[in-house]
């Protein structure tokens, strides 16, 4: 005889199991999404906060300023430069390392700043970062340039000019060392040659006394600079970021030239004539049309002329 006793799998059971499974699946899915969204929110806030704390780091009357930024955990800083709009924009976003879920997820929303110029690798990773700020003047002050690199990174300057050597020593920049030849550099440091070639970054300085020339990183395009602030930019930023930031700086120079032109025209009837209007208009047009660092040399010539003429004035424009 067959045993008719058995477990009756009623509709209620079936229903409860299916609905229970759906609810559990939805709960897991929702909590995973929630954690991901929360991380994205935190990363977005962190990106904005980073942009804000870079304000006091910028220089006022100082010639340079260095400081450190520490994050609570390992962080990636994404530096994106855009040339869209009048001044272009600096976009910052961050991603933090996490022990839950994916180790690194895509960065939070970008924070956009129009008045910042950050020179760093497009993705800089670390827990602590060194920041360094210098004014960019051409011939008037145009902006503060900010350089960021992870605390662990080291740079070895081989035979740098006296001005750069003094600045690096005076500011005690973390990770920087100065050597007479490549063999004296610390291991794993990025070697920067000011004389000779074959280093991670080869700098070619012009014969003039001023800091002017070009820089070539391995597997990257050559970029051109005038002034030490742009030289540091060429060292810390990849060539794409450098070219983009320089284009943005030239646009701001153009706007400022326009402003100084207006000031000159406004003050001339009040007994403060500069006669620089024509030069300022030419300068504004030339800087606005710049889209490559190679143009910086010709711009520097006009800039030097304006600087010299302004210095001779009793009623200085800037």
């Amino acid at each position, binding site marked *: 005889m067959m045993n008719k006793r058995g477990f009756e799998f009623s509709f209620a059971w079936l229903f409860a199991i299916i609905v229970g499974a759906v609810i559990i699946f939805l709960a897991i899915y929702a909590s995973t999404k929630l954690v991901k969204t929360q991380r994205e929110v935190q990363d977005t806030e962190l990106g904005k906060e980073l942009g*804000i704390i870079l304000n006091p780091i910028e220089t*006022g009357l100082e010639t340079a300023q260095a400081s450190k930024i520490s994050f609570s955990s390992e962080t990636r800083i994404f530096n994106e430069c855009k040339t869209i709009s009048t001044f272009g924009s600096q976009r910052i976003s961050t991603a933090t390392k996490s022990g839950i879920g994916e180790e690194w997820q895509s960065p939070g929303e970008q924070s956009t700043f129009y008045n910042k110029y950050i020179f760093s690798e497009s993705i800089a990773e670390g827990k602590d970062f060194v920041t360094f700020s210098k004014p960019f003047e051409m011939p008037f002050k145009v902006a503060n340039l900010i350089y960021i690199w992870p605390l662990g990174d080291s740079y070895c300057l081989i035979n740098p000019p006296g001005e750069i050597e003094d600045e690096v020593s005076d500011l005690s920049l973390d990770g920087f060392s100065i050597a007479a030849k490549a063999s004296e550099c610390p291991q794993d440091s990025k070697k920067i040659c000011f004389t000779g070639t074959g280093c991670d970054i080869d700098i070619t300085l012009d014969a003039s006394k001023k800091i002017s020339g070009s820089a070539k990183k391995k597997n990257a395009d050559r970029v051109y600079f005038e002034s030490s602030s742009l030289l540091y930019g060429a060292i810390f930023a990849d060539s794409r970021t450098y070219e983009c930031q320089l284009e943005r700086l030239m646009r701001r120079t153009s706007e400022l030239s326009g402003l100084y032109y207006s000031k000159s025209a406004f003050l001339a009837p009040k*007994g403060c004539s500069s006669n620089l209007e024509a030069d300022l208009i030419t300068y504004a047009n030339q800087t606005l049309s710049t889209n490559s660092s190679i143009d910086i040399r010709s711009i520097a010539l006009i800039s030097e002329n304006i600087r010299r003429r302004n210095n001779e004035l009793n009623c200085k424009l800037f």
Partner: protein
Amino acid sequence: MNLTASYSKKAQLKIQQMAFVLAAIIIFFAIVSILYLSISLRGLRGAASSLNEQEASELVRKLASTPEFSFEQNDCSNCIDLDKVLLLKSRQSYKEFWNLDFLKIEKVYPSQASLECEKSNYPDCSTITIIGKEDFGSPKSAFVSLCRWEQEKGGYTKCELGVIYASGKDIN
């Protein structure tokens, strides 16, 4: 042949019961989700607003040393070139430059009747509003020196006491 299906009334009642429970669970989760989303959205707005205010607060301290404001003829860290700022006011390109909804410079000493500066009444006026959107939060302020070219007595630089006000972008 006559075919009829017979259903148990008890089973029908149980299915109805299950459906109601299911509906109740879905409604419960929907309410909880809406509540959570509205609270977190409010928190997010608060955080964004607070960050914008913080940005304005940091910026107001540094604005005097930015090239558009700074008085460069002498080494004065808190001096604003009022002639330059008056002309800056009419430049539309700078309206979004600092991520601010409100940016104003006010002369406080020697005191003057409240009058917005234009080229026609300058320098006999007291305020220059560079950015002035209708709705803005509580502005942050910092004391500055307002320096300008004064043509009297053969021409000299005259500096007066002023305040700079800035308010961050409204996120709504």
